[in-house]
Structures are given as C-alpha cells and as structure tokens.
C-alpha cells in the first residue's frame, strides 16, 4: 500500500471502530460464549481485511507493513476477534512449506476465512518455548499410516474458530523440530478451554497419538512465526497505547478537583508527556522492525528482541499510568482502561516475556 492507500485504510478502520466498538458495545462481545462476536469476525472478512494477506507473487508473503493499521485499530478498540489465527503465526509457517500447491491451499484457507489455524507451540511452564517435548512418530499401522503426534501444548488462542492447529513437535525419525498440522476434529486431540487474563478464550491442547500432517522443518518456521507474532502484537500494543493516552488526556481535561481541571497540574502533565513519548518511540520502532522483517534485513532476530523488550515495557508503563491517572475509575470494569491493562499483560505473555527477551540479548552480546 502506498501512503495514500494506507491513510484511507486507517480512516476506514477508525470509522468501523466508532460504529462497532463504542463504550456500550465492546464489553458485551466478551460475554458471548465464543469470547468474541462472530458477526464482527464476519464483517472483517467482508470488509476485505483478509485480502491484505494475498501476496503479489507466489514467493513472497504480503507486506507486514500493511497489517500494522489493522492491528493498531484492534488494540485501540479492544477487538476480541481472533486475528492471530489468520494474520499472525500461520502465515509465517505456511511460507516455509516446500510444496507450492499445499502452500497456496493453506493460504487460501486463511484468506477465504474458511480455515483459520491455531498456533500451538508453547508448552506448559515454558514461556520462551524453545524446548519441545511434544513428539511425532511415523506409524505404519494398518489402521492408518502417517504421522502420530503426542504431547501437551499450552494456551493456544482463538481455538473456537480454528479448523486446525499448527503444532511444533520433535520429528522422531530425524530428531529435529518440525511443524505439523492437526485437524481440530482429529481423534486423540483434547481441548481444555478457559478464560485468559484479557477475558479471551484460550485452551490447553493434549495430543494422544493424534493423526498429523508434517508441513515443514521447525527451527526456521518457529523463528519466523515468533517474529511475525511479536511484530503484530507490538502493533496491537501501539493501538492500546494510543487509546490509553487519549482516554487519560481526555479524562484529566474533564475531571476537576481543587477548582481546576487535573490537566492543569504540571506533575500530571509531565506524566502524560512521558506516556506520549513512549508511544512515539514505539511507533518508530515498530515501523522500523516491520520494515526490516519485510526486507529480511540482517540482524532481524536481534531487532525483534529489542522490540519485544521495549514495547512490553512501554505498554506496561502506559497502561499502569493510565489506571493511576483515572483514579478509582481506572480499576473498574466500566472503562476501557482496565481492559487495556489486562490485554497488555496478555500480550506480554504471548511470545515469551520481555524478561526472557532481555536475557536473550544479554546472553549473546
């Protein structure tokens, strides 16, 4: 997208948010059993958002830069729809497939909205998710030849829309990590659903000799999926920062104490300014790392770690300050602020915490 198209897209999203995600609406979506609104999810598809994933040529993924406004809009308005099952990790994994026909089929399943895929990589107690205990063995049994997968995966998001799961496992034949596709209705797959800190729906997955398709080798796919997930989560975080900063500024402008608006107090002004600065820094960082990703720039993995640390910290800072600046209202369910705070906690936990990223930076200076 060129600058004009991008700007137009942002305006469309802003209008959509005003119409669909106002103060009276967003909290209702969360009370639905799916944890999100199927109508909204269908609308995103109808608006053509999924078409953003269609590559210009077969060999390259559509640019990440085009997705940043979508994720920012999602962050700001607290969308509950399972974007990741279409836009994030699955795209990166599919790009690694050697068979072009299979690659096209899976990608088409995402773009058409017919086959969203969950990303099941993380295992219990392993936030960084580098160690994989799940294993895949090749069965030659007469009842059905092919791969069988066994193990446990933790906190897979968006499970209710998924028709299948991309699962990292050790390929026992060659003792290397690989990524497998398991059908959501596969025998031997059990889901335990629960609410997550951000009021979403997540699930732990147990595989017991579940039939699986081996898609590709693991290391590169997992790294690419992680980078993609981190960058898009950072874009969502930007939206939260924008919303939290705007709400806090508006609140301080309206709320009067001691005979003047709270925004008149310099101590509070400077705290808001710090929040604005962190937002601006993250905007620059997200754009630069997304661009590096699209151009497969050298040192990308290090840039992703830097992004991971900085955005998580800035987001925590801003949402924490937003709660504080809203006073008692900040800890109620009545305002977006409390939801922002909890979504921020969730985002930090999705791709290994910022602490782990900082440790990775320290270990390989």
């Amino acid at each position, binding site marked *: 997208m060129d600058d004009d198209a991008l700007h137009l897209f942002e305006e469309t999203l802003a209008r959509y948010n005003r119409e669909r995600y106002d103060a009276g609406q967003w909290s209702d979506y969360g009370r639905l059993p799916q944890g999100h609104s199927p109508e909204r999810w269908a609308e995103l598809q109808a608006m053509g958002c999924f078409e953003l994933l269609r590559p210009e040529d077969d060999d390259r993924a559509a640019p990440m830069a085009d997705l940043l406004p979508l994720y920012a809009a999602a962050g700001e308005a607290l969308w509950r729809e399972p974007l990741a099952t279409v836009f994030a990790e699955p795209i990166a994994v599919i790009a690694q497939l050697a068979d072009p026909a299979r690659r096209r089929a899976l990608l088409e399943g995402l773009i058409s909205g017919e086959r969203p895929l969950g990303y099941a990589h993380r295992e219990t107690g392993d936030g960084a998710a580098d160690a994989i205990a799940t294993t895949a063995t090749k069965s030659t049994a007469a009842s059905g030849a092919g791969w069988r997968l066994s193990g446990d995966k933790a906190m897979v998001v968006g499970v209710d829309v998924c028709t299948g799961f991309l699962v990292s496992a050790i390929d026992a034949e060659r003792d290397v990590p690989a990524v497998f596709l398991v059908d959501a209705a596969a025998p031997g797959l059990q889901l335990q659903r629960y609410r997550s800190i951000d009021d979403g729906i997540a699930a732990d997955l147990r595989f017991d000799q579940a039939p699986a398709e081996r898609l590709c080798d693991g290391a590169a796919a997992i790294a690419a999926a992680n980078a993609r997930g981190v960058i898009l989560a950072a874009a969502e975080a930007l939206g939260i920062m924008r919303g939290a900063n705007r709400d806090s500024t508006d609140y301080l402008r309206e709320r009067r104490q001691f005979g003047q608006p709270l925004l008149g107090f310099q101590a509070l*002004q400077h705290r808001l300014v710090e929040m604005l600065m962190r937002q601006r820094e993250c905007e620059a*960082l997200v754009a630069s790392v997304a661009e*590096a990703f699209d151009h497969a720039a050298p040192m990308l993995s290090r840039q992703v770690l830097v992004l991971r640390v900085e955005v998580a910290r800035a987001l925590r800072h801003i949402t924490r300050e937003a709660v504080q600046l809203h006073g008692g209202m900040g800890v109620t369910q009545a305002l977006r602020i409390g939801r922002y705070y909890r979504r921020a906690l969730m985002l930090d936990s999705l791709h290994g915490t910022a602490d782990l990223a900082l440790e990775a*930076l320290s270990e390989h200076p």
Partner: protein
Amino acid sequence: MFGESATAAQAGPAFSEPESSAVQRAAVAAGFDAARFRAELRAFCRQQVPADIRARMRQHQYFTRGQRIRWQQLLQSRGWFVGHWPKAHGGQGWGPLQRFIFVEELERAGTPWLTHFGTSFLGPVLCAFGNDAQRARFLGPIRDSTEWWCQGFSEPGSGSDLASLKLRAERSGGHYRVNGQKTWTTMAQWADWIFCLVRTQAGGKPQQGISFLLIDLKSPGVTVRPIETFDGGQHVNEVFFDDVEVPVGQLVGQEGDGWTIAKFIVGRERLLVTEIGKAWHLLGVLQSIAAGRREGPRRVSDSAAFRRRAAELEVQYHCLRATAYAAVLEAEAGREHPVDASLLKIRGSELQQAIHDAITDLLARDGLAFQIEGLGGDLEGYRHGDPRLPGLLHEHLHSRAASIYGGSNEIQRGIIAKTALHV
C-alpha cells in the same frame, strides 16, 4: 556490535548495522547514496584524522582550539563542514537526512565535536535573515573556520524563561549601545564574535522587542570571565557588556525579529541534539572497558549483571535511533511530529547519562582518581588507573549538563505538554 573507532574500524562487523530501506529510499530521493556516503565518511575518519587529535580521541581528552579548527578545516576541504548550507551560499545543499548521517558518522568515530554556533546556527540565520553585505562579510570566515562564534542567549535572570532577557541595546545614530550581561556562553574564551539576543524595546509582550545582534568580542567594553564547572573543564563563561558600541549594520533582520530567529535556530538543530552516534561510540567504550577487566577468573564482560545492563542500554539505543531516523525522515519530507524535537533532546541526554553511569561504575572498581591535569595532555608522573580515566570522568560530569542546556528536560516536557496536550 558497538565499536570504538580504533578497533571497530579494523573489525568491520561493528559497523554492520543495516541501513533501513526507508533511509535508502529517502537518500536516493535526496540525490545521494546513503551507504556510499557513510563509507566515505568512515574512511575519512579512519585515515584523515591528524595523529595528535587521534591520540586525544583515544584517551577522551579535551581538544584545543587549534585542533578543533584544523579538524573543521579538514572537513571543509571536502565541502562537508558547511555541507548543509544552500549551494548559493557555498554549501552543498544537504537536506536533514544527509546532515544527520554526516554528524552521526563523525560522532561514531569519536572525532572532535563541531562547534555549531557559526556553522549550524549563524550561517543558516544569515542565509535566511541576513542581508547581502552581512553574508559577504561573515559567511566565508565561518566556512573556513577563521572566525570563531559563540552564542549569547542566556542571562543570569533568564534561563528557562529566555524571553525575559534584559541585555539592552539602545540605538543612537549609526550604533547600538549595548549594556548588560550574558552567561553560560560556551567557548566564549576562544571566540572572536558573539551573536546576541538583545532587548531593543521595553514593554509589550516579552517576546517582542528582542533583536539579533552580531558583536565583535574585541570591542571596547566587552569582558569575558570563565565559569568553573565541576568537570574540571572550562567551556562556559560570563560575558559582560559595558557601553559597547555596535554598528547598526550588524543587526540581523529587523528590530524585533530576535525571537523569530531564536526559534529558527532551535528548529535547525533539533534533530542533532540526539547525539545518537556519540551514544553508539560510548557503548563501544563501555564494552571495551568491560572486556579488558577481570573479576576473579572471568572478564567483567562475561558477568551476567554487566551483560544485562549492557542489553538494557542497547534496547534504549535502538529505540532512540529508530525514533531519531523516523524524525529525520519526517523532516526530510518537510513535516514535523509534535513530540519529536523535545523527545530527542530528552532521550538523547538520558541515554548518554545512563551510558556514562555504566562506564563510571566499571571504572570505580579501581577507585575514582580525578587527575584532571591529564585532560589536556599526557600526565607527567604517577597515573592512577585507566589512561582514559580523566577524560571519561570529565565526560561523565559534563553529560549531567546535557539535560540542562538548550532548554532543560523539564522545559522540554512542558513544550510537549503545550504542543501535544494543548494545555
């Protein structure tokens, strides 16, 4: 990945930080090749720095007036010192991006800071506001570094509240009579000329009635008195004016244009205050000190505590650099984000101070000798600790001023509150 000039220049990979494609595209649009320009600057800094200057760079010593002038003249031999001036006035017409890359590379190499009062401030002011006679008289000596300029803005009662300044200039015939005082005047002890904000009219809004006057420091009635700073250096001064006669031809623009010109100056250099290249250089210094020290059986650079601290600084550095380049690209496109200018000032100074804290904490393990006589040359007699100790401690102390001068960080936060929050 960070490198000190000496080792990094040989090692190469320390410079492998990739040029973003957005920067490459903007450079092409501006008519230059970013990678080639950087390579040219790096080669120049590697090969062309005179030995005596390089020796001082290595030890972080203070450069003499003569050394600074020689370095500036060397840069101008390539047309770089005033590269950012319009072509019509002897420059190369660089835009903000090329200028930024130029300064970043010089800072990375640790070369002497370019005194910007003439080249970055007055030169562009004369191009934009001056008359032909003033340009003909003053631009050449700035370009050639044959006249040294300093800046007379702050006064004892007018620091953050600059518009309250009182230095009086009263018109009588073909002259102004100037009476009063400037302070915190950087390098006035070395300067030939000073450009001053003066009050030519009392009453009305404080911003009105301020004018921009060029004053020869050799004029009768001018006294320059040094202010001792806690870093042991002498770089700031008080400048007194006692009935100093200044020809009216040395007024730039019209009477009352002073505030506009002052804002023009602040706007010009708002991106370069980040000093992102200097931060990169200092991170290299930090790494090299850690690698050269032992803590029991292992190198300090292998300790988890040090590495974590270095990683934190690296995150801060990359975040600031991304922001700085985003701001430069905005400026290159003729736009300005309401938060950028003050943000770069605040974060640039915070990062520099944080790196100096880390460096000093390493040096402190041997005890902090302050042999300040080692700042301007080699120590005679006994030297305690790292040969860079005097220079690095001086730079640490001096870095505390980075969040104070040029509008303190509190003032910068106030500016953001005004422009972005509309308070």
